[in-house]
């Protein structure tokens, strides 16, 4: 099943102070575009509070928030580049903070589905050179190009 993604789903978030602030901005954007239902934002925030998604990559850290499929209308991805980095909680050690530069929100419509896409996202996270290209990109076109290369051409 196709995953919607274009430059309008790339956000540059500046001067955010908390993970909640970042996630709320992303959720509101998705909601405004009709990609998710109005229950989505609360679901994402609750999910992140109970099971955080910050990943410590020992390089540029990434968070991969997601929520139950029932809150989603259209499968898509939403990417936020954070400047400066914002503390998220670590998935494996929720009491630890992870300073996150890149948030890749997985907006899924099929439980256990989108496997290829998920694996490609993980492939991207593991390739720090390309993660660096995303967070240092001047324009959204460059960010889109890297992500498309992983998701659509890999």
């Amino acid at each position: 099943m196709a995953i919607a993604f274009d430059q309008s789903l790339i956000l540059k978030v500046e001067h955010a102070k908390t993970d909640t602030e970042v996630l709320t901005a992303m959720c509101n954007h998705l909601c405004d575009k009709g990609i998710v239902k109005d229950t989505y934002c609360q679901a994402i925030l609750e999910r992140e509070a109970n099971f955080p998604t910050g990943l410590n990559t020992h390089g540029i850290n990434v968070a991969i928030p997601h929520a139950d499929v029932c809150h989603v209308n259209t499968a898509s991805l939403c990417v936020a580049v954070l400047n400066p980095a914002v503390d998220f909680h670590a998935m494996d050690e929720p009491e630890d903070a992870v300073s996150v530069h890149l948030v890749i929100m997985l907006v899924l419509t099929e439980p256990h589905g989108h496997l290829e896409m998920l694996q490609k996202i993980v492939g991207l996270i593991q390739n720090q050179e390309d993660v660096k290209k995303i967070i240092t990109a001047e324009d959204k076109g460059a960010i889109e190009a890297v992500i498309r290369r992983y998701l659509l051409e890999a």
Partner: protein
Amino acid sequence: MKRVLVACGNGIATSTVVATKIREKCEENGVAVTVNQCKLLEVESKADDYDLLVTTGKFTGGTVTIPVITAISLLTGIGEDATLEQIVEQLKK
């Protein structure tokens, strides 16, 4: 046939990636497995039916008697091979 339970926050996303990597690694090593996924909150009630629990998030939802391996490395890539080896070794026991 060994049984592996893979758990993440809601049993949908990261557990799917981890479950697939475990299936592939076990196949390469000739270890017959069935891998199922669940939410971390469901682990305590399901774990008795399995030989190994693998989690991405931290498991704090109770006590289990089966071995537990944390597999955050399969998402970050740091120490991924070592974790997969550890899983295979555990399943060969």
